[in-house]
């Protein structure tokens, strides 16, 4: 199983390297540990995250792909209703179908062994574009997003600039 898990992660790494989706770079921190990846995601266009690059770490369980990985933004986190203040991403595709901490999710949106790192990262990109404030991970951000949108956008833009060292 482990060799199956590692082979699968290796193939995903290869596919993501040879044929990467726009605005996504991902791979293991070191090939000696295929269970720990780092990914970069570009902020989607037409959103306050546009122009930004966000780094996240992915940790895979030993029984991947039966169980989903966890994903956490690093380097200051991301101000977003569905991202915990510590950077952990709360999104339906990262939850196994049995586990439903947010009751809004359809089972079909959740983790299944046929999902992949690529699909997770694409989902996270669209999550950045369209926050789901029904069950926020960051209550403050959700409140700000709902009630004071311009302030929210300003804060996000500032963080984007800061993330790029500007």
């Amino acid at each position: 199983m482990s060799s199956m898990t590692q082979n699968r992660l290796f193939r995903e790494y290869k596919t993501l390297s040879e044929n990467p989706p726009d605005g996504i770079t991902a791979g293991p921190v070191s090939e000696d540990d295929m269970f720990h990846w780092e990914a970069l995601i570009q902020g989607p266009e037409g959103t306050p995250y546009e122009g930004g690059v966000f780094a996240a770490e992915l940790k895979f369980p030993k029984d991947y792909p039966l169980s989903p990985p966890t994903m956490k933004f690093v380097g200051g986190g991301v101000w977003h209703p569905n991202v915990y203040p510590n950077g952990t991403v709360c999104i339906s595709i990262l939850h196994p179908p049995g586990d439903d901490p947010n009751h809004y999710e359809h089972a079909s949106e959740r983790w299944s062994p046929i999902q992949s790192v690529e699909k997770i990262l694409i989902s996270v990109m669209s999550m950045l574009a369209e926050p789901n404030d029904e069950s926020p991970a960051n209550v403050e951000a959700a409140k700000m997003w709902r009630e004071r949108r311009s302030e929210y956008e300003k804060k996000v833009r500032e963080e984007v600039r800061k993330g790029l060292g500007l």
Partner: protein
Amino acid sequence: MPDDEPSLNIPSLLTLAVVSFFVIRWFFKRDGESGTSGSRGRTRGNIVDPAQVEQISQMFPQLSTRDIMWDLQRNGGNVAATTERILTGRGLDTPPPSFQPLVAIPPTGVPAQPAPATKSDGQDLITRYNLAGKVVEGSEAEPAGKPSGWSQNKEERQRLLQKRRDDMILAARRKMMQKEQGGAQ
């Protein structure tokens, strides 16, 4: 009917089965409800009082609300029992996948004070990936053609991945700076 009264026929057996089923069901239901009378919760079927769940999850924020709901539902909304169970280290059982709590916690279950964003690792990507040198030298260089992402060699692969990462960050930074200069003029 009157002549074969002592013998058990199928309809009467069926009736007996149905009646006893209802009796047993009623008995257990009543039992379950009486258990909850001590606490403020009232459980009808699967319903869990969101206030109780919130109370426990405030005490033990590290636990999943789903686990808490499952335990509360099973012990009939007894907060004290669930608390005791957690504190004695037995932990909460993981609910079966089929468990669908009927009541959602109101999303506005805000903790007493809003959590300040942790700034423990608030470093930017330039410092994180040691790109300070490249920021200076590569500020005017245009990005080279899309590098092929794969190699047969492990070190080479690692280098290519690193390069794609750096390029992505530097390109974004360049673009942002250009945009700002454009905006300033």
